[in-house]
């Protein structure tokens, strides 16, 4: 964290430049109100609970969809990675469905599930599914044959090998998939909220734009930035805990 201060300094400078440019009307102050004005409308929105009230449904959709994806994709990926016939059966369909942007499913999801939470959780789930699935079976298939043979020479069962060798060996790859998915979850949840429904931070941003409360709109956008940063920060902590064995330097 300590070494990142130049980056944070740059953020501060950019905000300052925005502030100055807006105050001097170098940029349109209606579309880009001064940062100080955004901050003053942000703080009451946060303190007054408005942002929080919009954030909670978004967070719920993000984490419910993500958690569902984890629960489905990891076991499925382990099976695909270890059983060749299942892999050959499911890999083509995965490769076909994966490139379709998950926001393209929103109209279908609305038809089937309506505009409520179910639809949004489902879309987030679908978006999170593929990065985790691909990285799980990719990680499993990439496990070194020597590790597999090590399990065999010690005579452990296939199930034990899966749990004690294949899963931990594939964990770095699985974690990468999860991290990618979390980022996508945030995007998709916001898009879904903008398209349909009447709650959530995505809805809030669009709503503020429609009634020309531009500072509040930016307050919502900045909130998303902070949220994304915090989610990634927390995930890196979790990842670091589970992968602490992947050190890079020799301690003496």
């Amino acid at each position, binding site marked *: 964290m300590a070494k990142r201060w130049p980056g944070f300094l740059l953020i501060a400078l950019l905000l300052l430049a925005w502030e100055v440019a807006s105050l001097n009307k170098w940029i349109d102050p209606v579309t880009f109100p001064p940062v100080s004005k955004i901050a003053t409308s942000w703080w009451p929105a946060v303190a007054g609970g408005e942002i929080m009230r919009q954030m909670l449904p978004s967070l719920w959709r993000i984490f419910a969809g993500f958690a569902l994806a984890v629960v489905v994709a990891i076991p499925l990926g382990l099976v695909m990675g270890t059983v060749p016939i299942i892999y050959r059966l499911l890999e083509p369909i995965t490769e076909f469905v994966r490139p379709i942007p998950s926001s393209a499913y929103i109209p279908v999801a609305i038809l089937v599930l309506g505009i409520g939470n179910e639809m949004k959780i489902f879309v987030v789930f679908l978006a999170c599914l593929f990065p985790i699935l691909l990285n799980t079976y990719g990680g499993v298939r990439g496990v*070194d044959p*020597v*590790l597999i*043979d*090590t399990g*065999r*020479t*010690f*005579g*452990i069962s296939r199930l034990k090998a899966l749990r*004690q*060798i294949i899963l*931990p*060996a594939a*964990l770095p790859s699985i974690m990468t998939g999860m991290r990618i998915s979390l980022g996508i979850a945030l995007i998709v949840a916001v898009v879904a909220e903008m398209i349909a429904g009447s709650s959530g931070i995505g809805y809030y941003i669009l709503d503020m734009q429609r009634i020309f409360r531009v500072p509040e709109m930016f307050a919502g956008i900045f909130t998303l930035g902070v949220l994304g940063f915090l989610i990634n920060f927390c995930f890196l902590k979790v990842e670091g805990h589970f992968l*602490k*064995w*992947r*050190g*890079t330097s*020799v*301690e003496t």
Partner: protein
Amino acid sequence: MQVTPMNVEVKGKSSSADKADGETIIEVRGIRKVYAVNQTALTVFDGLSYKIGRGSFLSIIGPSGCGKSTLLKLISGLETPSGGEVFFNGRRIDGPPKGMIYVFQQYTKSIFPWRTVLQNIRFGLDSQKSLPAREAHEKCMEYVKLVGLQGYENYYPYQLSGGMQQRVVIARALICEPDVLLMDEPFSAVDAMTRAILQELILKIWSTLPITVLFVTHDVDEAVFLSNRIVSLGRAPATVREDVAIDLAYPRDQIRTRGEERFNGFRQRLFSSIFLQEKEGIPNA
């Protein structure tokens, strides 16, 4: 593992020459192995037979690509022969049997990087039996000490040198108390000094535990220094070209033993045999 009195007696004679004339522990009978390489059949073995005596330290040497490692894999049950059979303690091998542990050349790929030294060794123990936590811990610590890693038991592999990682892998194998340790060029990837130290370690272990070691190496000096018997394979399809009892006295010493005239005699004889074959295999050499 059962330590029969006979075993102990064999070990007791360790200063004498050929210990391999005891009971047969492994028998390779008419083994064939054919690989398909670029749609042509490569015959590595075509009817190889050999008997390995209990308690021996047998090294397998030969020109590169002759199938030394393949032979070890076939004996371990990790690979299946195309024909013929391998017997271990009188039983036909069909998959990796209990009582035999394979130590891979690529120790960095065989060690579990997500487990500490102690947990790696614990894996070996847990694969054989389940002991109460306290007892299991003590037993693991015993093997940590055996390979000289005390003080490092809570280190992760990335924090260890190559030689130390190889010690972990050896301890993880030994804690299973195998009858046979199969070692595939285990010291080829460590520096010369570390190798010399690990060679002494494995000799110490072999002379204290009732264990048979099959050791594949491309290093003739190493084979002569360690073994009481050396099998030299010919080019594929490989047969046993030489089968030499190395009757140098144990315990062997890196400096004294290597200085002996008879050490050099064995070395010269085996080296020239392999070297000439290597040269034959290279056009315009």
